[in-house]
Structure formats: structure tokens, C-alpha cells
């Protein structure tokens, strides 16, 4: 019987030791999680944006080979390389900006534009495009353009598209982050914001006028 109690004591001590070392669930730790028998869990296949020794530069996601373009992106033909008005904001065969948005402007496009504007433009240019975004408020940016400025409001749509795509002055281009269609949607939404700023009281529906005073 003595041995049995000794065994029980041993078991209890062992459990306590394991618990003492391993600790409770959900405690913070720095070291990578332990993976036992991981040959199926971590397979020899390429996963995006992880280190991989197969390529010389150690990246699994490879940049395009210089001078090449993707023919398809997913299941969609990639035509974003074509020098069309839609892709460049320039009239083909000329150096002139397209004056108006070369895609159909619909309510859906405007809604999409608002969403995209609020994601990518709002942090600096502000919700109403007056240049009072958060970066201006905290003094992080020296200059943020007020998009209601005459010089900007008078730019042709194609040039606005080009500024979004390639950037201008201190602003870097967003071509890599925002799709061609979404860039035109943003141009459309920006035009709506600019138009709204110039509206007169007479243009507001009679029923809503009282709420503005």
C-alpha cells in the first residue's frame, strides 16, 4: 500500500511539474508554436508571401520578370497594359487627357467610388475631400491638397485618374493598390463631392432645405 501511495504522489508531482512548465492555455509567448509530425501540416509547396528557398531571392511570391506582363489575372484577361483611354486617362494616339470618365457612370460606380475613396484617400484628403484628413490633423503631412481647389476641380478626368495612378508631388501613386475600374469610380465620386460643394440652396430638394439652416 505504501508503494501505491508513493505512486499516487509521483503522478501528482509529475502532473504538477508538467502544468508548471507548460502553463495554462492562452498565455502569451514569443517562440514559434511547437509542431509535432508537421510533414503534412507544412508541405513542400509554395504559399504566398512566405520565405522559400526555391528561388534565388528567397521569396515564394515572385515579381514579374522584367519586360513581361500577365496575360490573365485569375480567370480574367488582363488588358490593363493596353494604351487605351481607360488604362491611361489619355486619348489614344494623342497626348491629351480624356475630358470625361471613359466608363459608364452609374449609381453603383459612385457607391463603389465612395467606398474606395474612404479606404484609400480619406486618411489624407478627408471625408469631404477638403484636405483635412487625419494625417493633416496630427500634423504628419506638411501639405495635403484640398481637392475643392479650383486648379484641381478644373483638371480633366483623365488627369485625375493619372494622379491617382502615378501620384503627384509628395503623393505616391496608387496604381498598384487600386484597380483601374476602382480608380475611375474614385474619380466619379470625387466629382460628386466637388459638385456638392458648389451646390446652391435652390438645388437642395425643398423638403431637405430646412435641415441646412
Amino acid at each position, binding site marked *: 500500500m505504501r508503494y501505491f501511495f508513493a*505512486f499516487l504522489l509521483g503522478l501528482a508531482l509529475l502532473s504538477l511539474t508538467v502544468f508548471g512548465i507548460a502553463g495554462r492555455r492562452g498565455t502569451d509567448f514569443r517562440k514559434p508554436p511547437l509542431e509535432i509530425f508537421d510533414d503534412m501540416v507544412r508541405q513542400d509547396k509554395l504559399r504566398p508571401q512566405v520565405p522559400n528557398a526555391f528561388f534565388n531571392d528567397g521569396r515564394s511570391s515572385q515579381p514579374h520578370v522584367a519586360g513581361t506582363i500577365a496575360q490573365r489575372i485569375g480567370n480574367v484577361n488582363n488588358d490593363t497594359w493596353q494604351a487605351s483611354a481607360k488604362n491611361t486617362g489619355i486619348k489614344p494616339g494623342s497626348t491629351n487627357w480624356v475630358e470625361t470618365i471613359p466608363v459608364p457612370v452609374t449609381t453603383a460606380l459612385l457607391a463603389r467610388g465612395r467606398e474606395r475613396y474612404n479606404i484609400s484617400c480619406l486618411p*489624407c484628403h478627408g471625408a469631404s475631400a477638403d484636405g483635412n484628413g487625419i*494625417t493633416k490633423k496630427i500634423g504628419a503631412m*506638411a501639405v495635403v491638397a484640398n481637392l475643392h481647389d479650383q486648379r484641381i476641380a478644373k483638371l480633366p478626368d483623365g488627369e485625375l485618374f493619372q494622379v491617382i495612378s502615378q501620384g503627384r508631388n*509628395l503623393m*505616391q501613386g496608387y496604381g498598384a493598390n487600386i484597380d483601374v475600374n476602382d480608380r475611375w469610380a474614385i474619380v466619379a465620386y470625387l466629382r460628386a463631392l466637388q459638385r456638392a460643394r458648389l451646390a446652391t440652396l435652390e438645388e437642395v430638394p425643398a423638403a431637405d432645405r430646412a435641415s441646412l439652416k
Partner: protein
Amino acid sequence: MSDIFPKWTNKLPAMVIAGGLLVGGVVTAGVTYYLTPKYARVGYTPVQPVAFSHAIHADQLGLDCRYCHNGVEKSWYSNVPAASTCMNCHNQVLKDDPRLALVRESAATGKPVPWVQIHKTPDYVYFNHSVHVNRGVSCVHCHGPVNKMDEVRHSQSLGMAFCLECHRDPAAKIRPNDQVYNLDWQAPEGFAQKEGAKLVKDWNVHPGESCSVCHR
């Protein structure tokens, strides 16, 4: 001559059975408690090469998740932003700060910032980000309140039981599409039963519980 089997051996079978049961019980309890992502992964907070704070960028400055993770709506994986995305602001903000040296180097040379991946499902799990975020499943469900984290911490197990909980009852977690990236959104009382159930019906959400939904 002494007894071959002294008297105490009468109790031996009972002790062996009791001891076996106890050892079995303790081992089972230990395995159940420890050999699961709830223990192995939850709480993982690696030191990142650049001390990027989601709390500052997403919460204080109010950046949308998609400003940086701009592929999440179109792709099966949510991309880590290119260093050029960081430089959109940091070409002016903290322009020469040594903490951002790796980011500047990456933007200039293309050498990746060696971020440490925190959320990692097994390679035989095919989780698709876009299909979830486009149908009312918020970032916060799987990643926790990232917008409040200075250092990202693995906060949910992401084990199979975790996935199935939602796949068996999507209405309980689904939210309007315009609140997916609002990590602070709380469903109003009774939302799941009425609006949630309606979203599941309208969007034709059939999460599926068979193996091949996630494994192939």
C-alpha cells in the same frame, strides 16, 4: 519458507487497475488540454522585425484594413502590404526614423521585410479570405480585436471546431457587409435571429460542413 505471494498481493490487481485508470485519466486530460491549437497557438505574439502597431494605424488613425491588406476582397489570402504602401505615408511621416529602416530598405531594393507569420492554418486547409469578408464575416471573428493590438497576438484557436462553430450556424456571426471592417461593431439584440438569418438567406450562404469544403 516464506510465502511466494505475501498477503498484500491480494490487493495488487485492484491497485494495478486503479493506477492504470489514473494514469490514463491524467494522460487523456493532458492531451486534451495541451495538444490543441487552443494551447499551442493561442497567445503567440512574436517579436516583429518592425514594431508596427495596428492600434495606432487602425484605431487611432482610423485606417481601413483594406488600405494595406488591399487584396483581401479578391484573393484567397490576405496580403501583407508591399513596403511601397507603407511609404505612401512614411515618405513623409517618421521619414528618417531608425525603426523604419527595414521598410525603407524594402521599398528601395525589393528585399522583403521579414515579418513573422502568426496565423497559420495547416497546409491541408484551404481557407479563402475573399469569400468570407464579402459575405459578412468580419476580420475580428478569426483574428480578434487586431485594431486594439500594439503587437498582434494569435487570439482564436482557428482549429476545426472553431470553424465548424460558425459553419453550423452562420446567422450567429454574420453581419452587414458594410460592417465587416468595423472591428468594433456589436450586433444589436436579436440581430442573429432576424437580420442575420435574413442575410444568410438573401446571400445564399451555405457554409457546408463536409470535408471537401475546406480540405482537398
